[in-house]
């Protein structure tokens, strides 16, 4: 089963009886008791079942304390079953911060608790809970920085004691296999992206699918259905979960009819919605998925947000005790995972769903002592109240939980009325508490909707949606399943109409015809929207929510947590507000609220409501805080991606590898850098100087430019007078940017009327077309520039024997007279391979460069190797070429030129046609302006004093050797005046040479350079060198011309 092919509606039937500690699996149960799975917790064996999450299996096995909290090391337990707190972040198979509540159980998993040594039931840092006075809001900023020298001690100590998981960078803990699973990427396009697979989302997707538009639906849980999934209450004579299954079945049927149009992704949380409706998220691999996690991006014309609701935590004293959990957690434990959430329970709720959950758990045999409902009398669903009272369960309207009792775990609780006095205590091991439901607004915030507090639903609602974004489902405050589905249909039709309007607009632009047709679709779209709106309006609207901000009697000698992740208490909020940080955005920075894994998703609304109260503002002033992506956390490995190393290989890669080449990345290419372990490449260099070497220079940029205005374009981008490019002859020139910096150099050969062949450096092969077109973009010139880099390979033979080798493989005239230095000829090689042959001298020897079609490269290579056998031919690599050209003083861009120097600064000003202003040469005005500027950096050659052999007898310079290395600084009277670009020891010369960029005027020819490097930290070493003019090798240049 691939992604999106899962049977979202399939509910696992109760195939075997419930094992000990489990409830009988009802129709909504997703655990298969016939498939036990063994795993370990803290090294001890535990058994769960297929369909369990790690948390449900642990809870069923009696685990109540899952970890310790960030600051106070308080015991923490199962809380949301949806991964909405860091309580149940655990270390699974060596990977920290895995969410136990949502991670599917697999056989053989090793599960450990976090922020604790060993067993979370006994924690050595547990005493910290008593020291909360030392840790007021903002303590990190205020307390530990005095005295100053104590800070590092505090910092390290705090880091060790606080925090969540620990990443093991070496070997990735126990095995590292978990993080190494396959990561995939997928790129989707949709007309309608639906976020949320509950009733609203499914209805929207179906409405859009019926119109034949491309729909992608993303559901974070492993199945469709949303809230309906675990609800067994009858509605219109059908159990609610059946209603959800029917919708899911219709959607999946639509998908199987047209899988290319309708795509459904489960286990796929959305991480964010970005500009122009780019929806991003990830899919957790399950079943036969070929990946562990898959990142996806979906470019959507429209987005339907149907992300649903979540419990709003009730803030009351000791509300973090294990055994206190949200309504959804207790309910789903029982209904989805067949785990008994507790033996004796008390409920404190603010929504009819809470009452329904209480009645349902009672039905399943959980003893319920009392249900407090924070809403006033008469606002409850009478049918549910009656059902509870029938069972003898008291329903206390206008009451809420004020305190949980018990140390490691809840043992009792106290309920109080919100207005008035009195309290009641109940013994219980489970306290199911919420303050009602809050919409999951993360996605809305992410799309850029403006949100405001709604005093009817007591949740945030958008006051303005960006274009192309639609809202559906229970997020809007709807609770009636029919209303939710109708809102989905309305949103779906709205999205369809929006897509059609967009298409129509585009079509209208392309051809201003077909108006009648477009009008028809418009009328149709508008009609569907109108019908859907009528349907929705006829059904019950948003229900009144519960505005409770916190439990009664809060903060009296006990901690009440607003943010469980960051151990942010009610008292911290008070402190924060008292010090002026009285809006959530400030409190967030000061007290750390919402900075944890929850990122405000859970605590945000409570914090804003409490802050408004402290300022004395009405609750409507509760401003939502910024919720930043990722709205759900993908694993770091997924963020890193599959990490493909995308690179190019030359046509001769195999040949070079066969000869022992050591490859290194050079720009886009993988290139042969050395042919032996000798990094100084002495043998390769010596062979070029004495015999003949062969280099694979295929990455060299190769272009053809032709057309009536080709010469104009060349004149614009090259700094020389390109009218000098002639047939059969290489014209060397350079390109500058507008700052006069050298960006490229190469050869231009005229090949015909308005037809030129040109080469660029390897790194510029990519951007050259862009460069030419950019600098001629206003001119409207008629020319074509074709990149031949990958079409043609390039082989360079260089050395005194080069001609003898070439002569053996061609009948063409390669004599010095017939084919002089800087000539360019078309020659025929072997059995008739046509090659451009350029006679060059980059490495300072007699040298021929053959440009042949890539497919013939291996043939020509073999011919040359065979022909050169008698003349000592050997391959050489990039490093040897780098040294050979440096001995000649030839510049490589990026090595001897940089952003601070112009063409003239590096001694190449002779290329510049300074008379020409008409061609508007790129860089010419800057060269003119900088030419006479004093104090510029200039390129100088130098000879290191002494033999240049290191004290350790090695040729490589560097600290401790007495010889400088690349990058060492040039100093003058304690001031840095330049640096060494390249320095090597030359065997041919017998001394160490180099090139440096040095401030002009500091030192002249024959002068002394002081080069400073550090032998070891704090131990400087000064080398001296004499300034000599390049080229160092063969200064007369006779060799390439011979």
């Amino acid at each position, binding site marked *: 089963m691939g992604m999106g092919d899962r049977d979202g509606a399939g509910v696992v039937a109760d195939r075997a009886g419930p094992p000990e500690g489990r409830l009988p699996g009802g129709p909504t149960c997703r655990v298969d008791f016939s498939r036990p799975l063994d795993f370990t917790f803290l090294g001890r064996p535990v058994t769960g079942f297929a369909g369990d999450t790690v948390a449900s299996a642990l809870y069923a096995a009696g685990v109540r304390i899952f970890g310790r909290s960030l600051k106070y090391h308080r015991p923490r337990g199962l809380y949301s079953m949806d991964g909405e707190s860091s309580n149940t972040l655990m270390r699974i198979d060596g990977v920290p911060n895995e969410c136990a509540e949502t991670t599917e159980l697999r056989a053989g998993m090793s599960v450990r608790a976090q922020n604790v040594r060993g067993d979370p039931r006994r924690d050595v840092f547990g005493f910290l809970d008593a020291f909360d006075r030392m840790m007021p809001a903002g303590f990190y900023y205020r307390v530990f920085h005095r005295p100053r020298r104590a800070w590092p001690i505090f910092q390290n100590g705090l880091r060790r004691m606080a925090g969540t998981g620990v990443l093991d960078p070496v070997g990735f803990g126990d095995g590292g296999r978990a993080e190494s699973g396959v990561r995939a990427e997928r790129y989707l396009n949709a007309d309608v992206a639906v976020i949320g697979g509950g009733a609203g989302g499914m209805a929207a997707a179906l409405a859009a699918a019926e119109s034949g538009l491309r729909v992608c639906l993303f559901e974070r849980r492993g199945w469709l259905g949303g809230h309906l999934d675990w609800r067994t209450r009858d509605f219109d004579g059908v159990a609610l979960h059946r209603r959800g299954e029917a919708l899911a079945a219709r959607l999946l049927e639509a998908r199987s009819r047209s899988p290319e149009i309708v795509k459904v992704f489960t286990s796929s949380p959305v991480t964010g919605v970005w*500009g122009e409706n780019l929806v991003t998220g990830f899919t957790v691999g399950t079943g036969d998925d070929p990946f562990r996690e898959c990142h996806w991006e979906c470019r959507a014309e429209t987005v339907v947000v149907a992300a649903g609701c979540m419990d709003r935590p009730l803030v009351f004293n000791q509300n973090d005790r294990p055994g206190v959990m949200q309504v959804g957690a207790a309910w789903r434990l029982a209904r989805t995972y067949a785990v008994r959430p507790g033996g004796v329970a008390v409920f404190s709720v603010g929504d009819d769903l809470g009452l329904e959950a209480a009645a349902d758990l009672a039905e399943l045999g959980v003893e319920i002592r009392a249900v407090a409902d924070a809403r006033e009398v008469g606002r409850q669903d009478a049918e549910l109240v009656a059902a509870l009272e029938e069972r003898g369960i008291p329903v206390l309207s206008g009451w809420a939980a004020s305190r949980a009792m018990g140390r490691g775990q809840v043992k009792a609780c106290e309920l109080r009325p919100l207005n008035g006095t009195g309290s009641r205590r109940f013994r219980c091991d489970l306290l199911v508490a919420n303050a009602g439901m809050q919409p999951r607004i993360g996605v809305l915030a992410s799309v850029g909707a403006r949100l405001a507090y709604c005093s009817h639903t007591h949740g945030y609602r958008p006051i303005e949606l960006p274009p192309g974004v639609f809202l559906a489902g229970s997020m809007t405050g709807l609770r009636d399943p029919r209303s939710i589905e109708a809102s989905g249909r309305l949103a779906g039709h709205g999205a369809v109409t929006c897509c059609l309007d967009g298409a129509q607009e585009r079509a209208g*632009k392309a051809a201003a015809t077909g108006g009648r047709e477009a009008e028809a679709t418009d009328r149709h779209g508008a009609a569907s929207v109108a019908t859907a709106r009528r349907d929705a309006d006829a059904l019950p609207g948003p229900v009144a929510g519960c505005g409770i901000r916190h439990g009664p009697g809060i903060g009296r000698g006990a901690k009440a947590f607003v943010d469980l992740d960051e151990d942010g208490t009610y008292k911290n909020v008070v402190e924060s507000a008292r010090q002026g940080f009285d809006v959530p955005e400030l409190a967030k920075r000061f007290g750390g609220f919402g900075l944890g894994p929850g990122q405000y998703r859970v605590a945000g609304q409570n914090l804003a409501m409490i802050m408004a109260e402290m300022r004395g503002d009405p609750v409507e002033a509760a401003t939502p805080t910024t919720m930043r992506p990722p709205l759900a956390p993908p694993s770091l490995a997924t963020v890193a991606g599959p990490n493909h190393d995308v690179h190019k290989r030359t046509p001769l890669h195999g040949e070079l590898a066969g000869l022992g080449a050591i490859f290194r990345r050079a720009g886009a290419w993988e290139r042969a850098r050395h042919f032996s372990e000798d990094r100084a490449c002495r043998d390769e260099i010596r062979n070029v100087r004495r015999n003949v070497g062969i280099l694979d220079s295929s990455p060299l940029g190769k272009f053809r430019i032709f057309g009536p205005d080709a010469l104009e374009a060349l004149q614009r981008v090259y700094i020389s007078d390109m009218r000098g490019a002639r047939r059969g002859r290489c014209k060397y020139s350079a390109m500058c940017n507008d700052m006069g910096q050298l960006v490229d150099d190469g050869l231009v050969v005229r090949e015909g009327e308005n037809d030129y062949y040109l080469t660029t450096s390897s790194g510029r092969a990519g951007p050259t077309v*862009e460069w030419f*077109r*950019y600098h001629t973009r206003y001119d409207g010139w008629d020319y074509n520039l074709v990149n031949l880099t990958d079409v043609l390979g390039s082989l360079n033979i260089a050395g005194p024997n080069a001609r003898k080798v070439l002569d053996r493989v061609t009948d063409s005239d390669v004599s010095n007279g017939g084919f002089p230095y800087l000539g360019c000829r078309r020659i025929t090689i072997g059995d008739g391979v046509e090659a451009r042959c350029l006679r060059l001298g980059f490495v300072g020897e007699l040298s021929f460069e053959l440009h042949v079609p890539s497919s013939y490269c291996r043939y020509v290579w073999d011919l040359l190797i065979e022909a050169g056998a008698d003349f000592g031919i050997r391959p050489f690599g990039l490093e040897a070429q780098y040294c050979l050209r440096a001995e000649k003083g030839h510049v490589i861009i990026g090595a001897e030129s940089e952003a601070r120097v112009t063409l003239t600064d590096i001694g190449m000003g002779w290329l510049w046609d300074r008379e020409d202003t*008409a061609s*508007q040469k790129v860089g010419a005005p*800057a060269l003119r302006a900088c030419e006479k500027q004093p104090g510029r950096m200039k390129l100088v050659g130098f000879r290191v004093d002494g033999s240049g052999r290191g004290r350790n007898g090695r040729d490589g310079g560097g600290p401790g050797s007495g010889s400088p290395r690349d990058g060492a600084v040039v100093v003058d009277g304690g001031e840095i005046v330049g640096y060494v670009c390249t320095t090597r020891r030359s065997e041919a010369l017998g001394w160490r040479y180099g090139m440096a960029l040095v401030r002009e005027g500091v030192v002249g020819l024959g002068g002394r350079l002081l080069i400073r490097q550090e032998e070891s930290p704090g131990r400087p070493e000064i080398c001296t060198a004499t300034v000599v003019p390049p080229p160092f090798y063969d200064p007369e240049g006779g060799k390439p011309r011979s």
Partner: protein
Amino acid sequence: MTFRLTCPVCGKRDVYEFTFGGQERGPRPTQEGLGAEEHFRWVQFRLIPGEPREEWWYHGQGCGVWFRTTRDPVANREVEGGDGDG
């Protein structure tokens, strides 16, 4: 950086396919008699008003055309109706 641009040849495409070529600032000034100050102003100085402006973009991972379009730097979106203009 997830917006789209309208290439005059290829239509609306993801911004990842394009290279930014800077604000529209007119053709290069005539070099005859051009002062250094004037030249550097043209090369380096830009006004960055927080309002839609004309820009150059290159469709490098597509057809390879330079074109002008209007982008609102505050919303970071191409302004609607910004038909590419090669």
